[in-house]
Each structure stands twice: as C-alpha cells, then as structure tokens.
C-alpha cells in the first residue's frame, strides 16, 4: 500500500532536515577557533559561538536529530519497497555515511575508557572535517541543479 508517493517525507521533515544540516555546519565549523578570530562571536547574541564546550554540545544535539531523521527516512524507504536512489542521492548518502561513521568514532573517543590508535583518530578527525566540506559542496551543487534524492518515476 503506497501512501508516500515518491516517498515524499513532507515539508516539516525537509525543514527539520535543513535546520539540522545548518545547525551542524555552523556548530561544526565552530569547533575550529574561527568565530572568535573572525569576530563573529563579537556580534550581539553570538558570544556563545566561541564557547567550544557549548557549540560541541549543540553539535551533538543536532547530530542526534539528524541521525533520528536519517533512520526515519531509511525505515520509510524500506516500507516503501526501496525506491531507487538517484546518482545524486546515492552520492549524498555515501558522504553522509562517512560523516556519521567518523562522527561516531569522535563521540566514542570522548568516553573515558575508550581508546583508539592515534592513526585511527587522525583519519576520523580529518575525515569528518573533510567529508563535511565535501558534503556542503555536494548539496550546493545538487540544490543548484535541482537533483532529488530519488529517481523520478
């Protein structure tokens, strides 16, 4: 029984997804010491942007939401008998998966008692940052070219 035509998750979902991406990008770049350097944190109401502990916590909250939204979409996708992904959709999915995987390593390393080798952490840290930039480029290009996640039809 199809009730999500072309698996349309709805406007609210898309807004939430967009908000999470924006939030993750803003707080993610805030993990680099650039907001203080480039005076963003001196703007009214943005002093918190240079508080690393605060932006880190926000980043993890947005990550929670994004993971929940992603799993929501995956479950619906299965229920909808796995409509085919477009190439643009597949590309974004792969990059996001890389961001999630490196992100999970970064979360686990913050737990006392979890040890990863320095090389694993280097790959996770630089990979997370690098893939985030690649993802931004990917969504900018796919948005400009109006490429949906799923194949038409």
């Amino acid at each position, binding site marked *: 029984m199809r009730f999500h035509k072309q698996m349309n998750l709805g406007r609210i979902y898309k807004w939430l997804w967009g908000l999470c991406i924006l939030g993750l990008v803003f707080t993610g770049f805030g993990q680099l010491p650039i907001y203080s350097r480039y005076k963003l944190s001196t703007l009214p109401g943005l002093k918190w942007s240079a508080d690393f502990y605060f932006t880190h*916590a926000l980043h*993890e909250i947005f990550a929670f*939401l994004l993971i929940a939204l992603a*799993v*929501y979409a*995956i479950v619906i996708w299965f229920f909808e008998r796995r409509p085919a992904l477009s190439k643009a959709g597949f590309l974004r999915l792969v990059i996001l998966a890389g961001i999630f995987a490196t992100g999970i390593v970064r979360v686990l*390393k913050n*737990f006392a008692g979890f040890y990863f080798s320095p090389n694993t*952490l280097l790959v996770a840290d630089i990979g997370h940052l690098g893939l985030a930039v690649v993802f931004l480029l990917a969504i900018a290009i796919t948005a400009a070219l109006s490429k949906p996640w799923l194949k038409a039809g």
Partner: protein
Amino acid sequence: MFKNTPSEEAMSDISRRNFLKKAAASAGGLALAASAPRAAFASPKGAELATVLDIGRCIGCGACVEACRTINNFKFPKPQKPFPVMSPQDRVKVEDWSEKQNVDSRLTPYNWLFLQTVDVSYKGQDYLLNIPRRCMHCQNPPCANLCPFGAARKLDNGITVIHPEICFGGAKCRDVCPWKIPQRQTGVGLYLKVMPRFGGNGVLFKCDRCFDRIEKGKLPACIEICPEQIQHIGPREAMLEKAKAIAKEYDGFIYGDTQNGGTNTFYVSPVPFEVLDRALKEQAQPAPHLEPVENSMALSENLGKALLLAPLAGALAAGASIAGKLKKSQD
C-alpha cells in the same frame, strides 16, 4: 615524530652538573640521580601510568625544570622570522617566546615544567611549599578529545601528547584545558604551508611526560633527576595507593585524582589545596591554579550516550508514522 633524539650523555651531563650545583644547596640525603631506580614503573599494555608529586618534600632546587629543558631541547620550536602576517591583526596575536627561551618561571613553549612557591600557614604551622607544575595528563583529556585535527592525542599509557607536525596552532586545546597548560609559539608548524594569513598560528607545546624515554623503559627527566626523589611513576592504581599513603603520613591532601574527572597526576600536600590556591593568587604566582575542577567532558559523555538512542528514536517515529497512515487507510 622528532628528527633527533637526545644523547645518553645529555642525561648524565645534567646529573653531573646538578650534583655539583645542588650538593651545596640541599641538605643531606642528596641521592645521585644516576642511581635513581629505572623502569620499575613498567605497566602492562593498556594500563595508564600516573605520577605522584610529594610537594611536602620538594626543596625547590629546580633540577627538574632544568632537566626537562635540557632533555627536551630537541623538541623545542625553531621559528623562522619574519612571521607571516596573520589576519585580522587585532584578533590574532603573535605569541613569540623564541627570544625568551630562558624564562623558566612559568610555562612557555620552551619551558614545560616550572615551580610555584607559596608561603602558607595551616593549623598553626608555617610552610614554604614548592609545587612543580605541568600538564596533568587527564584521563579523559579535553585537549585530545576536542582538537579538530587530532593533533593532541592520548596514548594508551595515559600520556597526552601534542603532535607538532599536525598542530595548526589554533590553541583550542589551551582554551578547553581547565588549567590552560599548552603554550603557543607562532611561526612553526603546518599552518605555514597552508594559508598562514587566514588559518592557524603556530604550534602548541606542553609536557609530554618524556613519552619517548618511557618507550625505551627510561624515566621521565624530571623524575630521574630529582635529588629528593619526590616524584614517583607507575600504574595508576598503584600510584593512587602511594599518594594516599603519603597523604596519610601528612594527615594531608591529594589533588589531581578526581579533578576534571580524574587525571594521571597526583599532588600530595600537608596543606589543603584550597589554602594553596588562595595563596597562589595572593602571592601572584603564575598560572595554573589549584582550584577544584569538575569533569569538563561530562556533558559531552552524556550527550554521546544519548546519541546512541538516536536511531531508535528515528525508527520509533517512522513506525508510528507508518502505523498512523495504515490505520487511516483502513478507516
């Protein structure tokens, strides 16, 4: 990581020089550094090493400070001048200690250990206490956890090290460190090869607990050289017991066992650390402090645990949506 390693002569040079210099200064009981116990602290793989510093017995001779500077000299930054201009100039400060390498009265990129000295009274007794200060080597170090490039990392023996070839010099590690330990030198490091005007500002340096010496079964320089043998190193559990035993002798106090969620550095004092901290500030001693420190990674750990529930939350929401729509289509 480092191109050269110190020669064996460097260590025995320090021993000889210090013996001659300090023999007159310290009272009897000066042990020859060369005969200090070696490698009695070897810990099983994966077990963290901790150090105990008995500040009740520190005589403030400074041998540890000098030994640290000598033995780690090959790791010190060698900046090229002039430094590239960094923008915006009013927000990015040059931190240049290269003309002040001899400063040993505070932490600098060229001085990773220094002595604080305080004059205090406690329970009617006067104390002149010397406190060797350096990185605490936290069990869950925020510097290593939060470095965006993975330059600061914690080794499996508990030592926190900043990799000078990866560090971009943003000094986030210093900002998030409860004791503000790492010290920056502008004009060295990877940032010079990327876009020095717009990103980065040198490399951060701090005590690395002579991790390279420990790898070879040797003691950290400051521990080996100490004429009073006030420092001990070994597996964390054993060192905590040692710290408690020394504290019991003094009817004293420990700092570093629980601060910031637990560190691998235990200071033992006959005087409470709140009293010492107050004295540090009143007597204008250089940072760092000796304040109580809550676990700075606690919120992150809790949010991280919550993240593990995120897939469940998404799945449940999807299940509810599907169920709702199915019910609607049946009605």
